[in-house]
């Protein structure tokens, strides 16, 4: 349980730039500790993205729940938000002034955040090559969210329904 708390505390401290950036880090932490298999983690991400709430937070809650039930869910959730909320209470105003004065801090954070999202892309890209259907799905998902204003949720649901139909028909 302590390991769970520490792992998510660390993840929370680096969670800049929206939830998806840190899903790669969560994955590395969870897999290296041997808590879940890559397949388990993939299903968990699938659930986290179709449930209301920030993806990273949902993933944390779910990993905690899977490992230690309700108490684990509460601990993982609190751990992920502990650093941000403490910072918000204490130095939030200061950091905002820093961020506003020079654009240097903001730019430096952008540099780091692109590194984090690169890690997430690196972790999940292999999944797109596992089958033709997955490759096509990934390309469609990429095109829709990079070049249109369509809510990606529709792609997620559409792909999910295709997946369900395929399993129902072919088993």
């Amino acid at each position, binding site marked *: 349980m302590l390991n769970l708390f520490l792992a998510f505390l660390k993840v929370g401290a680096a969670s800049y730039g929206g939830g998806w950036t840190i899903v790669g880090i969560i994955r590395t932490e969870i897999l290296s500790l041997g808590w879940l298999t890559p397949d388990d983690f993939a299903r968990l991400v699938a659930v986290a*993205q179709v449930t209301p709430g920030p993806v990273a*937070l949902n993933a944390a809650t779910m990993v905690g729940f899977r490992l230690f039930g309700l108490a684990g869910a509460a601990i993982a959730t609190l751990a992920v938000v502990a650093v941000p909320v403490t910072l918000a209470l204490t130095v939030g105003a200061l950091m905002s002034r820093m961020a506003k004065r020079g654009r240097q801090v903001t*730019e430096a954070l952008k540099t780091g955040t692109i590194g984090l999202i690169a890690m997430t892309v690196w972790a999940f890209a292999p*999944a797109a090559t596992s089958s033709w259907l997955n490759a096509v799905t990934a390309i469609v998902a990429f095109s829709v969210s990079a070049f249109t204003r369509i809510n990606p949720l529709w792609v997620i649901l559409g792909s999910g329904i295709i997946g369900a139909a395929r399993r129902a028909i072919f088993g």
Partner: protein
Amino acid sequence: MSDKTADAPGFLTIFGFFFGISAVTIGGGYVMVPVIQRAVEKRGWIPENEFYDLFATAQSIPGPLALNTAVFVGRRIAGTRGFIAAFLGILLPPFASIIAVASALEVVGAWPPVRGFLDGAFAVVPGLTAALAFNMIRKRTWTPLRAVITVAGAVLIVVAAKWAVPVFFAVVLVAWLFERTKPC
């Protein structure tokens, strides 16, 4: 804002407000923040320009953007009481729905159509995350130096694996030092 807490909305009002937004909005910070903004303005709790200041602050600290924005808005309208109300209001709906979904999956998770749905929903993740990276790269103002540091930083973070968090902060620090010495 002479008298901040006297005529400020109560705990339950603020809690209910954020609970409602959090419960019906799927898609994280960038979807949720505009919803919060419109609703807050409609109630006349915070003027628009002040909201943008709070939003800028929320972006400068780590953590889910929607949560950060909510707790700042909560604190601005009703002090500590508002902070706690916003925190719980934003967190409880996803927490409860995850518990519900995870419990349901323990029962029906092995059922083929459910597995198929989850596999399908996961298949979009490589595309979505790649698009996110693509947009971040496209929207940035690039200089040669920035590009070099960003690429080097990304490689180091990917290679670092378990040490990605400390390496991330090291990369940010180095990038910041370069940005200071060579204003681009």
